[in-house]
């Protein structure tokens, strides 16, 4: 059988790094092919070259037996290549049909298009109402819009970049059915992910990238998840040590916490309540945009809340700002590293000052003690193995994983009573992610209480003692993670968000 896509010796170098080095890839028609690798392994660069967003330095591509060198995504689309990005490019204030029309060269009349969207989306088990505003859709439904937009082009090859990171387990099931149907009809799918169990369930071939090079081709069904992970990382993985912890007294008590939306399409927090005990890790799961940022902001002190809603060690802290809360032992690490948890253009020393002044005594009478600040930044770098020439380097010069280690380390080394982290390992390579998780567990073992907000359910199952789901601004009652099945978690997360599943 002839290949659909054949790539040979593809190379792309950026200043200081070879993102792809002689990459070879073969995809057959109708095949679900996984592209595996850590962050920075070169997956994104490779698919961007296939989709015409990046021009390779050297190497050849053949598509359906003909030489293929797309100059832009439009050329790639007309050749039959479509792509669904990890970050959606949709306008929230427009309807589904309007969004789809915006991506077309010559959109048909709106009524015809709406009918077509209805037809295609139902046919592939992803029902969509073309008239609804995208701003009102859940993340899963937004992804449907992106997929349907691609399917209208009748692609031969569909590229999907981390499609399940925003979905609940039930929504993942629906998506997989769609993908299998597409594959059965002859559409090949290039599936990027680092979720290994998913890949084993869905894909029949895999290409593994590490450091810009192809390290292996294999059939993922013949390998265990652990073997795949080790191929990806190129080393044996450490298992996080989760020795038994004893929960102590209640340190943080949140009662009836509500907050109006912070942005137009943002969620409101609705009557959130929970108790957090010393020495425990509370995992809060949920698809992004369901109130995670808002919850972190009310706990960190960036947003004050109504009197009596947040209590730390018995004292009402609802009206206190971030530094007053830090003084009392409540620290936080927001999700967005650049621009929120850290200032991109400032040095690591200055970024250490950002949150460290209160607990680490980095100021005297308001004057910054540069020596102490540099020493603290260096401590974080050493203790958390942050790969950088030194504390004078600007935060934006660090890779995502290294900066995340710095951000988490900065808070952990301040010995918090309560630490709140949002997406602690998002966009972080496996080794760094394991180190961060271990640091959170160690912190809890020393008697601190930890709240880990994350979309990565496997991560929460690994570190959390209790699990609660955040869905449309409401928090479910926390349940012990021990014995909790992935289906139960999915239902706590809102199941398929009321999305319909059509008959295929």
């Amino acid at each position, binding site marked *: 059988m002839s290949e659909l896509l054949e790539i040979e010796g593809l190379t792309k170098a950026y*200043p200081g790094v070879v993102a792809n080095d002689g990459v070879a890839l073969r995809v057959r028609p109708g095949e679900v092919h996984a592209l595996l690798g850590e962050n920075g392994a070169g997956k994104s660069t490779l698919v961007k070259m296939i989709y015409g967003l990046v*021009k*390779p*330095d*050297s*190497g*050849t591509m053949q598509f359906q037996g003909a030489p293929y*060198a797309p100059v832009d995504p439009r050329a790639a689309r007309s050749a039959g290549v479509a792509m669904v990005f990890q970050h959606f490019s949709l306008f929230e204030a427009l309807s589904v049909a309007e969004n789809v029309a915006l991506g077309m060269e010559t959109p048909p009349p709106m009524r015809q298009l709406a009918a077509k969207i209805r037809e295609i989306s139902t046919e592939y088990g992803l029902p969509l109402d073309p008239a609804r505003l995208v701003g009102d859709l859940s993340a899963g439904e937004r992804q449907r819009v992106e997929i349907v937009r691609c399917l209208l082009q009748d692609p031969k090859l569909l590229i999907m970049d981390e499609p399940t990171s925003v979905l609940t387990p039930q929504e993942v099931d629906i998506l997989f059915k769609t993908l299998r149907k597409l594959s059965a009809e002859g559409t090949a799918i290039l599936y990027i992910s680092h979720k290994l169990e998913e890949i084993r369930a869905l894909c029949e071939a895999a290409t593994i990238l590490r450091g810009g090079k192809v390290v292996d081709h294999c059939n993922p069904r013949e390998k265990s998840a652990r073997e795949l992970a080790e191929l990806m990382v190129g080393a044996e993985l450490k298992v996080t040590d989760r020795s038994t912890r004893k929960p102590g007294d209640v340190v943080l008590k949140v009662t009836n916490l509500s907050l109006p939306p912070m942005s137009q399409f943002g969620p409101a927090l609705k009557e959130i309540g929970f108790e957090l005990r010393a020495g425990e890790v509370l995992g809060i799961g949920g698809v992004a945009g369901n109130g995670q940022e808002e919850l972190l902001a009310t706990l*960190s*002190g*960036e947003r004050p809340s109504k009197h009596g809603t947040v209590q730390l060690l018995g004292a009402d802290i609802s009206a206190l*700002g*971030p*530094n*007053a809360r*830090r003084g009392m032992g409540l620290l*936080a690490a*927001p999700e*967005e590293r*650049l*621009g*929120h*948890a*850290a*200032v*991109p*253009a*400032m040095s690591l020393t*200055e970024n250490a*000052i*950002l*949150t460290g*002044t209160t607990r680490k005594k980095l*100021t005297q009478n*308001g*004057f*910054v003690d540069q020596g102490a600040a540099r020493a603290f930044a260096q401590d974080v770098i050493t203790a958390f193995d942050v790969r950088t020439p030194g504390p004078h*380097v*600007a935060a*934006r*010069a660090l890779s995502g994983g290294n900066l995340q280690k710095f951000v988490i380390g900065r808070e952990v080394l301040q010995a918090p009573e309560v630490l709140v982290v949002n997406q602690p390992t998002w966009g972080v390579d496996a080794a760094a992610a394991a180190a961060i998780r271990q640091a959170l567990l160690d912190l809890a073992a020393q008697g601190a209480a930890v709240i880990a907000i994350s979309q990565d359910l496997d991560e929460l199952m690994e570190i959390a003692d209790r699990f609660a789901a955040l869905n449309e601004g409401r928090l479910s009652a926390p349940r012990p993670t021990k014995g909790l099945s992935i289906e139960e978690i999915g239902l706590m997360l809102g199941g398929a968000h009321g999305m319909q599943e059509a008959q295929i």
Partner: protein
Amino acid sequence: MITLIRRPNPAKFWTYATPIVAVIATMIAGGLLFALLGKPPIEAIRVIFWDPLFGANAGYFRGQLLVKAGPLILIASGLAVGFRAGIWNIGAEGQYIMGALASAWLALHVYPAESHWLFPAMIVLGALGGLLWAMIPALLKVWFGTSEILVSLMLVYVAENLLAYMAFGPLKNPEGYGFPGSRNLQSYPSAHNTDLIAGTGLHWGVVTAFIAVIATYILMHRHIMGFRIRVAGEAPRAARFAGVIPARLVVFCLGLAGAFAGLAGMFEVSGPSGQITDSFNVGYGFTAIIVAFLGRLHPIGILLAGLLMALTYIGGDMAQLTLGLPSAAIQVFQGMLLFFLLGFDVLTNFRIRLGRKAVA
């Protein structure tokens, strides 16, 4: 084809080199401009940059240098603090006028009483006048979210009209034979801001400007408040996370800049200018914006930029007199300086790569 590639770290070399490169480029482009106007370019540049310092009458002009640089440096020091935080006070000219009016009002009110307390009291009132005028855009921004850029700028014109009213009305010199303008404070010993060393142009305002440079340096680079100001300008969300309350920052930055501008107005009206007239303000408040950026918003840079800008003022006047250059040409020349500075600034954060590689 030219492509810009972002540098991971801002280039140290270009941070310091761009002002110098910009000055050189301004000289070249300015020279071309003067040549097109039919004036000898090299001589014009020499008259502007060299003669005031080392020419025949340099003794007089060197004193003028401090007189002109003093208010520019003082105002720019205050503005730069706000600019670092992303708070754009464009109305220093108005705050400068209000500082002058407030302090002159006091002096003219108690005239002709002599007291050691009068001059210090005028300093306080000058600072207060500028500060309160700056509180209008600050509080409107905090309470109603208005743009401080527009409000502060509009208030310049309000202040100018108030100045004219005062010069023709309440503050008019009763012994002035009907001419507009107040009594001259230079002939009122208790209120006169005299040269500390005769003939040098070094008056209390220049001393205050130097103190302002040192004070803002300590604030911005040693104190946690300055750190927070810089964070707020770089990343507002990170600033909030670090405990910065944006409203307080707006009030602080506008208040500081207003007070500095008011002080500059006070020292000017009690010294070099001497009286309140409808043409009292000569644009120091606007030129200080250029000085702040030319000095990289850094106190030491502002000190040097203020001196340079004062030099182009004095040299420009000389060029008008001796070579007959139109005053508009001098203003274009000054504008070019900011233009080239912002243009070359790209090199600090980006590398330039010429040509492009062949596509495989």
